Each structure stands twice: as C-alpha cells, then as structure tokens.
C-alpha cells in the first residue's frame, strides 16, 4: 500500500495507480481454496474444453477481487471502499496479463463523508475491457 491519498488531491478524470496481474494456474487453485469455488473450468483443462471453452479461464469473481485490491491499495489505511462491482464481459486466461484500472468520475461530500466515484475495469494486453464496473470510495480530507 502506498502513501495515503486525500480527497483534496483527487480530481475527476484522474486515473488511479494501475495494478497488473498475471495468474498462474497455481494462483487459480489458491483462490479456489480461498473462495470455495471449485468449478473445474478454472483448473481442469479437459473439463473446460468439454464445456466448449478453449481452455482454462480466470474466475470472474477473482477479477472482481483484483478490482477490490486495486481500490484497497489506492484508498489507503484511512479510506474505505463502500461499494464496487463489475460485469464479466470477456474471458481472461492464465499466463496472460490482466491490467486493473480505475478513473475518478465524480467527487462530492455527502453527510460529512468525502465520496469519490470511479469507473473500474480489467483489461487485456490489447486494451479490451473484460470486467467493466464502478466503485464508491470515501477518503479522508487533509488537515
């Protein structure tokens, strides 16, 4: 986690620091154990191909969790991620870069909270967005 980001320093249109992932099949098994999702399309190539897929794919909910990590790392110890979500529009494969990105779309104060809204997404190396979504984060103010 980097230095604390403050509400005062955030501007609409600003991109937050990117997070790059590249899943080994071992990571997919680790996450399956952590999440309890043991669907075979994520670790059994024959099973995956039997369902019509080209091969193993990264769990959709793991990409959601990657976006959670992106936001957690950015919001810092004093920020709080209130809500985040994404839809799974494209498949990502193991051993392929997954770039997690976010851009501030709106900032405002509500009930004493400093609220920041963002567009977040994962993208393939060719720039295709595979998991577009949105997030709501509260940040501390300076002073």
């Amino acid at each position: 986690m980097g230095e604390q980001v403050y509400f005062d320093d955030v501007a609409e249109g600003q991109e937050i620091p990117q997070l790059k992932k590249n899943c080994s099949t071992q990571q997919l098994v680790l996450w399956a154990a952590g999440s309890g999702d043991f669907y075979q399309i994520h670790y059994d190539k024959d099973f995956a191909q039997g369902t019509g897929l080209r091969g193993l794919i990264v769990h959709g909910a793991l990409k959601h969790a990657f976006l959670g990590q992106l936001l957690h790392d950015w919001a810092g110890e004093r920020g709080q991620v209130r809500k985040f979500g994404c839809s799974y529009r494209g498949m990502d494969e193991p051993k392929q870069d997954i770039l997690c990105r976010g851009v501030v779309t709106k900032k405002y104060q509500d009930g004493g909270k400093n609220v920041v809204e963002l567009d977040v997404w994962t993208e393939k190396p060719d720039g295709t967005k595979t998991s577009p979504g949105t997030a709501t984060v509260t940040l501390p103010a300076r002073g």
Partner: protein
Amino acid sequence: MTTDTEFQITDEMKAQIGVESEPWEYEVTTTSVRMYARGIGSDDPIHYDVDFAKAQGFRSIVAPLGYIGTPVYLPGTNDPTFGFPRRGGGPRLNIPFKGLLDGGTETEYLDVICAGDVLVETSHLADLKLRDRPGGKMLFVTNEAVYKDKTSGKVVAKMRLTSIHM
C-alpha cells in the same frame, strides 16, 4: 453446451423471485482470510499479521475486498463444487443448461469484516433474464445476499451475483 432453443422462463420460475432463503452461517477465520489474500496475490500485512492489524485499530486481520466469509460446510447439504448451502426456502430453479459462467459481482460494505466474525446470510432470487445467443439461449440468474453480524445483528455487507447458464 445445450442448444435448447425452446427454453422459456416459466411463471413458476418467476414466482421464485424475492423468496427469501433460510439463514446460513458464514465464518471468517484467520486461515480463510490468509488463504483468500494469497489467492488474490496480496502482500498487505493487514490480511496476514494479527498484531499488525490490531495496531491499525482492527479486531483482527481484515478480510480482503470481495471475501465475505465461507459458508459452513455440511456434507450432503452444501454444493460440493461451489460450496453454497442447499437449504430450505429460496429459489429452486430447474435449469436445463449445462454451461455456467460468472456474469457479474457487486459488493457493498457497511462495515469492515475481520477474522473471528461469524455472519448470517440470507439470499433471494432477484432477477431472471433470457437472451438469445448463436445456437441457443442464455439465462441470466441474479441473486442478492445480505450478511448480518451474528452477534450484533447489524448488516455488514450485501452482494449481488449474476450467473449465466447456457
């Protein structure tokens, strides 16, 4: 994958929308938090080191975003692949399609979730949508879950999950 083009959402299926499930306990343990954090590839000590987390003001290590506990597993009761409980109440859909993909996930936090928490989850079917695809159809099934802290009864998180059957 099925190429069933005859499938339709029935009135019986629509009647399942909004029917609340029986509650089920979800556990958040130090081991499960660390395992999930390893799974996402995080190296933040807030998810691993209890002393560090307590020094930051938390009850214990903090669950990574996206992790809202593990449903208590009872053989013969939980789904052996996905782990979710097959409990009373809630929707019972007879979906003929064999293919299954994640469609989307949305998580809302009303409090921080830490190891040691025991949550009580209830869920319901929120939406059904049928769309055409080349060679067949796709059924989008959206469920909404609410997680309450077992001790205080306070809602700590909500999750909306969409699965795609085809």
